[in-house]
Each structure stands twice: as C-alpha cells, then as structure tokens.
C-alpha cells in the first residue's frame, strides 16, 4: 500500500465517521427546526378556519397584507424595532468596557472567575428577574422609596416606571453576558504587540485604542449586536410583566394570535415578517462592518 492511497482511504473514512456521528443531531435539527420553520412559512399563506386550531389550506396573501398595512401592527412593529435597537445599543455600549477590563486588566488566572461571575445571573430565574426590575423601577419601587426616605427627592420619579425605558433596562440586564462574551473573545485574540507598536509610533493611548484595538474588536462587537438584536425581538415576557400589557411588542402580538386568538396563519405571517425585517437589518449591519470582519487576526 503506498502512502498516498492509505491517506486517501483515511480521508474517506474520516468523512464517513463524521457523517455517521453528525447524522442524529443534524436530523433532530432538521425535524424540530428546519421543518417547523418551513411549516410556519407555509401556514402564513393559508387561511384561518373557524374551529379551534383549524387551518383551511387555501392559498392567500391576506395575512401579509394585513400585517403590513394595518396601523396597529405597523406601530407595534416599529416600537418593537426601536426597543430592540435601544436594547442592543445599551447592552453593547455598557458591556464593552467590562469585556475590555477583563481582557486587558485582569490577571489571566482570575479571568475565568470574572466571566463566571458575569454569567451567573443570566442562568437564574428569568421571569423573577424581570419581575424584580419592575419592583426596582416601579412607582413605589426600590429606587423611589429609597430616594424618598433619603430625602433626595420629594416626589416619586415617574420616568423610570412602566415605559419603554424600563423594558430596555430589563432586557439590557438579561442579555448582558451575550454581549460581553463575544467582545471578550475578540479582545483576547488581539496581539498585544500591535498596541505597543501603536504607542511606539507616537499614538496616544486613546488613539491606539481607537485605531488599533477597536477595529480588531469589531468581529466581537458585530457578534454581540446580532446575538442581542435578533432574540430581543422575540421576547414577550418582559413587555408583559414590565409593561403590564400596556406596551405590547411584536412578540406579544404573535403569542396572542398563536394561542389566545387562535389565528395561526396571521400569527405566522406576523412572525415571518418580523424575522424578515430583523434579518434584513442584521444583514445590513454585517455588510456595513464587512471590512472589519474580513481582516485576518
């Protein structure tokens, strides 16, 4: 047997072993993710039946016409996008210095402890965390009663109560580790000698950060933006608990149509439209940053 043919044989068997292993998880994802998503797209073109969970299988584009022209859906959709945009901006801007600190100023042996501390709150009772933000920010909440008893204010602050701001704070809290971790990973990859080179060539610390560190950290920032922006559009728990149903977002509409109102085709059309809009926005954002992503580390 020549060395060449044994190599070819090995390569073939490697691919075969790979497929044999990946088959089950891939099939699972196909059956429970790809097929269901395809069904949602199919349903979005169908007609709602009169019975419970009944769908009449006749083609129509009416669901989309309603989704895109109805004033209520349009205003909820734009409010949703605004909230997701604000959450993403807040989360990433607040998270960047933390990731920077852990990557550049924490001794290597303590880094995983910091990351662990940052991720713990993320894993603990999401619903109750959201509810507690309502307790903290509410009219008679922790902040107001604390400031009142300290005599700093004599009237409860109202701009932090039930509003978009409270929803943004709560979601920024919920998605914090999702923003910190990708930024941290890309900061860790930066060759530290590049920063020294920047300083040696006469740049100030701030300009080095702006012209060397930040562009090299952009892949992490883009990752953070995507992983915060896309899922926040699907959150209906936070607007429900914080806003008490007064500030519905697009996910609340989908949830209501799918469960309470029982109009699955319309719910599907709203969901597909929301994903299209969010997907397009995310795609444009990636394109705008393409020059940073193409740079090799």
């Amino acid at each position, binding site marked *: 047997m020549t060395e060449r043919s044994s190599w070819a044989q090995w390569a073939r068997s490697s*691919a075969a072993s790979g497929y044999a292993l990946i088959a089950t998880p891939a099939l699972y994802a196909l059956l429970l993710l790809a097929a269901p998503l395809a069904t949602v797209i199919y349903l979005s073109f169908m007609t709602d039946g009169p019975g419970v969970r009944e769908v009449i299988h006749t083609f129509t584009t009416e669901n989309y016409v309603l989704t895109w022209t109805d004033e209520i859906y349009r205003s909820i959709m734009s409010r949703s996008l605004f909230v997701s945009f604000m959450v993403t901006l807040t989360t990433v801007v607040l998270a960047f210095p933390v990731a920077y*600190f852990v990557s550049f100023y924490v001794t290597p042996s303590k880094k995983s402890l910091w990351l662990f501390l940052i*991720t713990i709150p993320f894993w603990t009772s999401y619903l*109750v965390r959201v509810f507690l933000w309502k307790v903290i920010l509410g009219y008679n909440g922790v902040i107001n009663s604390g400031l009142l008893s300290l005599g700093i204010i004599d009237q409860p602050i109202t701009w932090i109560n039930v509003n978009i701001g409270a929803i943004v704070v709560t979601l920024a809290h919920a998605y914090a580790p999702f923003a910190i971790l990708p930024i941290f990973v890309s900061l860790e990859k930066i060759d530290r000698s590049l920063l020294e080179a920047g300083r040696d060539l006469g740049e100030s610390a701030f300009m080095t950060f702006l012209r060397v560190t930040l562009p090299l950290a952009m892949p992490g920032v883009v990752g953070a933006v995507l992983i915060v922006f896309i899922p926040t559009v699907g959150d209906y728990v936070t607007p429900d608990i914080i806003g008490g149903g007064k500030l519905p977002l697009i996910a609340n509409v989908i949830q209501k149509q799918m*469960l309470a109102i029982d109009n699955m085709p319309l719910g599907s059309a709203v969901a597909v439209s929301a994903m299209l809009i969010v997907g397009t926005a995310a795609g444009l954002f990636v394109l705008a940053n393409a020059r940073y992503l193409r740079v090799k580390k």
Partner: protein
Amino acid sequence: MKSNGNGLRLYAILYLAFLYAPIILLPLFAFNDGTIIAFPLKGFSTKWFEAMAEDGVLKGAVINSLIVGSCTAILSTTLALLAARASTRFEFKGKGGIMGLIMMPLILPEIVMAMAILVVILQVFGDVLGLPTIILGHTLICTPFAIAILSAAFQSLDKSLEEAAYDLGENKWSTFRLIILPLVLPGIISALLISFTISMDEFILANFLGGTEPTLPVYIYSQLRFPKAIPVIMAVATCLVAVSISLLIIAEYFRRRGVAKTGGKDSGGFL
C-alpha cells in the same frame, strides 16, 4: 495607564452590582414579614417558605420541571456529544452548514421556535401537548450550549493519545470508552448540568408546548399577576436561584477540571 485600569475596575464592579441587583433583593423579600413587595421591610419571617411547602400545584410543577430538565439534559448532551465529536475530530463536506443549522437556536428568538414546533406538532400529531413535547423543544435549544462546552473539551484533547491506543490494538469503540470518555467526562457533566439549568428556567417553549402541564416557570408566570401570591413566588425563586447557583458552581468546577485534565489552557466561560 494605572489609574485608567482602576477606573475600569470601578465600572466593572458597578456593572456586576447592576447584574446582581435583582438576585440580591430576592431573599430580602422572601424572608420579609409583609405581603407587599416594597421597602421598608417589615421583619424576618419564614412563613412564605412554609406556605410554599404546602402548595400542591407548585409541587406538581416542580416535579414536572425536574422530569423535563432531566430528560432534556440527557437528550441534549447525547446529541451534543455526537455533534461535538464529529465537528472537532473529523473533516467532511458541508460541516459548516450542518453545524450552523444545529447551533441556530442560539440566535433565533425563542418565540419563533416555540410557535414553529407548536404548529408542526398540531398539524402532524394533533393535540398531544404535554411534558414530552416540552422535552423535544428544550432539547433543541439546550443542544447548542452543550455543544459549546463539549467542543472545548474535545478540542483540548491530544489526538496522539487516541492514535497510541489504536497502535496498542484497541478498536474505535474501546478507544472511545477507555481514552476519550474519561478525558471528556468533566465536560459531559458540565453539559448535563447546564442543559438541566436552562430547561428548569425556560418559560416560552414550555408555555407554548406544555398544553395543560405547567412546569415551574409556567406556574410562576401564572402567579405573577396575583399580588397575594407574590411573596410565595419570591420564596420559590430564592430556592430556585440557590439551586441554580449551586449547580452552576459544580458545572464550572467540572468544566475547569476537564480543561486541566486534557492539558488545555483555560479560556474561561460557558459560551
């Protein structure tokens, strides 16, 4: 430069305070002798924990969550083991695409996955919603997290150990059992615990796919609108947070031990 670092440290500590603020308030209200969740606190009391222990519906929800969490942990870790091994050890065409599909639940909104699985189940099987359908959904979203942990464990594995075993006459399966499995075992335990923790805390899929069977988060959500029920929920959540943090500390311990065992460098973090 030095003072710059101190400023950042202060900011990072304030940020941690922001992250932990709700969790620190939780036990304060759970042990508070008052029905309203607000300051000033009324005094120490364990009555909400006593009321919690007597709640039958709550007990049923906890048992449901434990069943779902355990099954999800085992299923998703098994799937992740296969995927992580395939992607770290073997080269094959379409690997990026297949792995992309499997990891996609990480960035898809949960409500989209929940409604998608719901419509497929209703269209194909009719109204069979219950704990098994929640397990199916939870397995889908927990698998990517388990893959992230297990890939790190497999990546730090030295390939020459495996080749040595082949040279010494072991076959594929006995090599896996004798060499690879013991080395990635800490990663497996860590993946099991993380999947269990995610499943125990997941609400949206459980709400869509559970039918009339409430898990603990579904029960908590149904109670949040009744002001009277809130102190008991605070007690429940305090226990839940205590359990989650303990599980996470154990998971982190095993993850680190796994990295140390295979001689890798600790890059930190679960994700």
